[in-house]
């Protein structure tokens, strides 16, 4: 066991870690931040997406020790300081961008990554960017709509199907 330290959602945190401990395990079991979900554990589904030094990564396919010292942001760090939902989270609620909610942490983190680089994406760009995030409930339509809305664009023309 090695003590691994990193900054998670602005706070310096440490937990014991084996070499094989994945970042997803470090967050969920080491820090008890269970908002990051593990859907497939094979880097297909994207439920485990978090940001490492500002970049979206699949935390089930990164070793915790390999990102020691990094700045990590998880879904727990997406709410506003007063505890209210962040813009993307609120848009998911407003536009029914989730049903069971299992994929939502990864969807929100991926959306945040997209909007950082591309503040006004087209619907096509949103769909392309979500390639590595799988949702089995919504059919994606309202997720795309929520992300478009979070970017400040008019989504009234995007009809629910």
């Amino acid at each position, binding site marked *: 066991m090695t003590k691994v330290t990193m900054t998670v959602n602005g706070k310096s945190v440490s937990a014991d870690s084996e*070499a094989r401990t994945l970042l997803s395990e470090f967050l969920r079991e080491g820090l008890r931040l269970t908002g990051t979900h593990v859907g497939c554990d*094979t*880097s297909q589904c994207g439920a485990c997406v978090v940001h490492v030094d500002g970049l979206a*990564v699949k935390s089930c396919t990164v070793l915790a*020790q*390999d990102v020691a010292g990094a700045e990590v942001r998880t879904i727990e760090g997406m709410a506003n300081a007063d505890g209210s939902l962040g813009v993307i989270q609120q848009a998911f609620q407003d536009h029914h961008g989730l049903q069971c909610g299992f994929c939502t942490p990864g969807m929100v983190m991926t959306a945040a990554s997209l909007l950082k680089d591309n503040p006004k994406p087209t619907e096509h760009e949103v769909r392309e960017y979500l390639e*590595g995030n799988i949702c089995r409930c919504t059919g994606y339509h309202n997720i795309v709509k929520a992300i478009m809305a979070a970017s400040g664009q008019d989504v009234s023309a995007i009809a629910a199907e």
Partner: protein
Amino acid sequence: MYNFEFTKPTTIADAVAALKADEAQALGGGQTLLPTMKQRLAAPSSLVSLTAIPEMQGVCMSDANEVCVGGATPHASVAIHAATMFPALAALANRIGDPAVRNRGTVGGSLANNDPSACYPAAALGTGATIKTNTREIAADDYFQGMFTTALEDGEIITEVRFPVPEKANYQKFVQPASRFALVGVFVAKYADGARVAVTGASSDGVFRWAEAEAALSADFSAGALAGLAVPGGDMISDLHGSGEYRAHLVKVMTGRAVTAAA
């Protein structure tokens, strides 16, 4: 996965020394190796992360008109920084996997693994790239030696890849929709001394050059030049995603699309 020793050196020399340990394995972005280890298809006794070595990071232009990519440079970085230097290479990097995978996976990792359906081998072979390691420089034509097989020796690290910039180039990938790997991918490049065509995803021998198409395109760089050519289906991968004949057909279709897009 089974446990292992983990080290993260900051120089190539330290990484080479660490890889001398018994059953040590280099770790790039881990986007193939970690899933493989979870399946217990690989169980190295130690992993040597190559992602903290500054001299293996970044994209630059050489005096010889080559795009030089550090071996541990992630795909997303190539997509951004090679965009004006070599748009076809940047576009290829920008369609590997998904955005999160592109933030971790590295060019050196892709070429060292030499998955028969990976994209980067097509770019390296299609440009006649030079694969630079800690001990030598290897021409792409000598580097790829069949599915998951390369000229690399045990413990040898890809420190840089140099891609000669062509006059025109394009990469066309027919995506296998579940895995997002190339069912067939074709990289076409036109140089002053002729055209190169490299095909990934199709052959059971891994990436290969389609010599007949290169000859035809060197004489006439247009999709029409491919009209009389056919790729034999016998050596092609045949699986539930597509028969060998289907893949052979796709090779010609995707080559034509690449030529049209490049021209």
